[in-house]
């Protein structure tokens, strides 16, 4: 019996940035939560951005959802885990966290993302960690 045959595809040529990008049109719904970091740089919330509460006692003005996030983030927790524990879709989590980041009630620790040249020492650390599993 012969297995079915696939044909490999080539990397798509990246589309040139359109001039109106970022003006109202959301090109990538998952990445629309852009938050400003301490020195004004912009960071996007990823599923594996780690969130930590700056203080676990919620201010009186905090909504129940906000208070829940602050309580859960006494220790660092990924956006994905928050979404799971709170039963909130990822995009709703983004809205909630953007409020908390803006109010400086939580801190976000940016994820390690794939790069043209992924840091080899990072990959080596991951391999060492897996070895211990």
């Amino acid at each position: 019996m012969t297995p079915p045959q696939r044909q490999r595809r080539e990397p798509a040529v990246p589309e040139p940035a359109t001039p109106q990008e970022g003006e109202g049109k959301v090109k990538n719904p998952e990445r629309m939560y852009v938050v400003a970091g301490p020195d004004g740089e912009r960071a996007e919330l990823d599923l594996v951005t780690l969130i930590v509460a700056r203080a676990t006692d919620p201010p009186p003005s905090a909504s129940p959802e906000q208070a829940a996030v602050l309580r859960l983030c006494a220790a660092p927790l990924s956006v994905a885990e928050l979404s799971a524990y709170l039963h909130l879709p990822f995009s709703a989590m983004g809205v909630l966290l953007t409020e908390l980041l803006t109010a400086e009630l939580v801190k976000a620790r940016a994820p390690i993302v794939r790069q043209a040249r992924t840091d080899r020492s990072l990959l080596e650390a991951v391999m060492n960690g897996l070895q211990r599993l």
Partner: protein
Amino acid sequence: MDFKGSDTIPGPRAEDQLPHTAQAAAKIVIVGGFGVGKTTMVGSVSEITPLTTEETMTQAGIGVDDNFGSASKTATTVAMDFGRISITDELVLYLFGTPGQQRFWFLWNGLFEGALGAVVLVDTRRLEVSFDVMGRLEERGVPFVVAINSFPDAPRYPIEELRTALDLSPDIPIMECDARRRASSRDVLMTLMRFLHSLAMTGSLT
């Protein structure tokens, strides 16, 4: 939204909390058709009981440029299982098992963009189910390895025959695994990491 008081939300168990030293996390994605063993693989290596995150999105065929969540569109909820491995006190690895069906493709923008790489799980009873997934990873330049999950009643092909059938370039690792076994799933992840490492050496990663 029906949201109860914050005290009623169970969070991570004490032993599932990350240390305060956790500085950053990376992710790996496990893709494949329905029932191929994605959740099983996540569960076999995860230090926490796998959790589920979900996203509400509009039906495929609309295009990503449509306003997200426009009232007239049909909303679909896509669930993803994920697990976690603490690599060091500072570094955490997350594994996402994501549905590979084409109609969920726009879930992928945020998921695959930053992923270090992907594992494509393949069931030889339905080899063609994985074709589209691999093509999309290639188009996006996401490095991947192929793991053949060996089900008892599945046709067995020599690995090189599968490599040819899947039209894999010679450098892409392909291996058999049993997703139910931690050691086997860990070997798959190791193979992916070694592959990423070799790409980082040659600098050929797009």
